[in-house]
């Protein structure tokens, strides 16, 4: 699906064992191994199959609404007084975020494999909604595992999933967030391995998921590159995206990795501060370990037990990160920085008032970093940010914190 990578490319990974440097791999129970190998075979065939690519492109154009616009944020740019700021408007996709790009791709694979049941995990509920949507579109039953804490704070998305016909199973184990939902989805998969396709929502998990999800999301960066060349006649100087598991970020980053002039920044959830335990900054404050099928940066204690983490944004509330991001950090191609809850909240309000766009709390983290950097850059410089989701789902959370509403 991508252009051929150059020699000495940052875009050649993973290797055939699913590794990006020391990261990635296939750390799963034996029950799942045969299925994961089948999935890899099917994916290898599908990605070079013109019929598969054509169906994906058709659904992209007519169901998702691709290409998503590249939007010049004129008033925000003027307010900050520095670099020109462009948004890749993934929040305008059907279902309101980038998650649908991956779900359409994976459900086509599930159909090819003859699977009759879809399971998914979700944090903010965006991936759950996107999974429930494609399951409805293709007539497959869908079970979504969601942490009980997230069921509370993302009530609108829970309702949407139920309307779409999905069964939402609240997970009370651990702190009831994304990590626990993923554990429970893996338990379901191990039990129903013959009938079930596990539609993982982020660019993490056992090989081939990190590669596959990245390739389905790379359409974001490919379009943005063409659109930017059309609008400005050149590439951006800086690309910024928020990183939880990291699918929207790897989607916009990947096509730019070999463009040396483009600086790339991933924004992690700094929560209430990275000194304590209440954050989800796996790269900034974590260390390499093995969880959910891959080796990557994790929040963990000295005994290798995984910590819970915290973020105001349910979609970033995960104690790990996709393995390709871990590698891009270690080789120095991408810089990863934390943004605190309160900074994201401020950015959320700024964008709402200046541009009339209510962003999700996840890209609000990326925006907070853009707001820090733009004034320090020249007016002839260009920032591209992935506006990965819309904020309707977050208005009650934000309203509660700001003491507004009701």
């Amino acid at each position, binding site marked *: 699906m991508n252009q051929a990578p150059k020699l000495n490319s940052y875009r050649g990974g993973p290797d055939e*064992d699913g590794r990006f440097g020391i990261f990635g791999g296939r*750390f799963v129970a*034996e*029950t799942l191994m045969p299925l994961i190998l089948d999935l890899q075979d099917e994916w290898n065939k599908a990605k070079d199959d013109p019929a598969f690519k054509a169906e994906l492109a058709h659904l992209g154009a007519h169901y998702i609404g691709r290409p998503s616009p590249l939007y010049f944020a004129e008033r925000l740019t003027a307010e900050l007084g520095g670099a020109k700021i462009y948004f890749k408007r993934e929040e305008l996709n059907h279902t309101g975020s980038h998650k649908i790009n991956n779900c359409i791709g994976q459900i086509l694979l599930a159909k090819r494999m003859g699977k009759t049941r879809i399971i998914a995990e979700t944090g903010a509920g965006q991936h759950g909604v996107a999974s429930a949507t494609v399951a409805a579109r293709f007539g497959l039953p869908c079970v979504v595992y969601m942490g009980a804490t997230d069921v509370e704070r993302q009530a609108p998305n829970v309702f949407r999933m139920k309307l779409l016909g999905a069964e939402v199973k609240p997970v009370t184990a651990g702190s009831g967030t994304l990590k626990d939902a993923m554990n429970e989805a893996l338990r379901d998969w*191990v039990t129903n391995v013959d009938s079930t396709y596990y539609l993982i929502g982020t660019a993490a998990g056992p090989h081939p998921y990190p590669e596959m999800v990245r390739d389905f999301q790379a359409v974001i960066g490919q379009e943005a590159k063409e659109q930017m060349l059309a609008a400005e006649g050149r590439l951006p100087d800086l690309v910024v995206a928020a990183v939880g598991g990291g699918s929207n970020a790897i989607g916009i980053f990947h096509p730019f990795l070999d463009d040396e002039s483009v600086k790339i920044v991933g924004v992690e959830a700094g929560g209430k501060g990275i000194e304590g335990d209440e954050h989800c900054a796996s790269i900034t404050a974590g260390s390499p370990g*093995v969880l*959910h*099928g891959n080796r990557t940066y994790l929040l*963990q204690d000295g*005994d290798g037990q995984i910590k819970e983490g915290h973020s105001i944004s349910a979609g970033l509330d995960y104690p790990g990160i996709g393995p390709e991001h871990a590698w891009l950090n270690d080789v120095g191609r991408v810089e990863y920085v934390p943004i605190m809850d309160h900074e994201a909240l401020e950015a959320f309000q700024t964008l709402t008032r200046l541009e009339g766009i209510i962003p999700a709390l996840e890209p609000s983290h990326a925006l907070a970093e853009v707001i820090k950097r733009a004034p320090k850059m020249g007016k002839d410089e260009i920032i591209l940010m992935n506006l990965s989701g819309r904020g309707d789902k977050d208005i009650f959370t934000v309203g509660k914190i700001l003491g507004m509403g009701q």
Partner: protein
Amino acid sequence: MTARMDKRFADVAAEGRPVLVTYFMGGDPDFETSVSIMKALPKAGADVIELGMPFSDPMADGPAIQLAGQRSLKGGQTLAKTLEIARRFREEDQRTPIVLMGYYNPIYIYGVDRFLTDALAAGIDGLIVVDLPPEMDDELCVPALEKGINFIRLATPTTDDRRLPKVLENTSGFVYYVSMNGITGSALPDPSLIAGAVGRIKAHTNLPVCVGFGVKTAEHARAIGASADGVVVGTAIVNQIASSLTEEGKATDATVPGVEALVRGLSAGVRSARLAAAE
């Protein structure tokens, strides 16, 4: 590999009965009670002990073992302390094989070389690491075999004849056949299906085949033991421990005796298995 494991399987086979393998979670509900439980197991008839290493995210375990891990971690259990439980046990029992069972991350963080050295010193005979399939053998399996520690692999109903040789390639000690696709503590499938699966694995290996997942009663143990070289019981023991605790999760006078009584019953089950099969 380790003489202790091979000798135990050979001795029990000479008695004409299957091996009873018992699992419990190290540190559940606390360190000292765990040491007492472990010491009680062989006296009640356990032939091999699986010592669980708790992990915060046990993706292949059902609710009973998840909760046992949480109790253990809440009580301050660490991998170092789990090795210490084994060392304490070895002070009075040098013959019962010990297999550590858990997930890779705590071992990876402890450091593979340091872990293998300390495990050998503590008298560990084998490892079962759920999230390390053969594709990941360079991580721990190969270094463990080089040090003389068995690496025991799980085979499952999804492990077909095409894949079985790969699964068995670096397996030693015994093969652990997981009797169903699923998590620990699920229901036991039909013993005749299990007998067929055991036969299929034995066509590929000379190693003993032990069967687990779903074995709860002496009757189950007897039925499985009719075809398998060994029977693994885990969730039933963990549930027995849980049911003996106070509301705050503390051990009581009934905790260790409860495990002893359960294992004595299971042991009687495996001891009558072949007699039943011969009838």
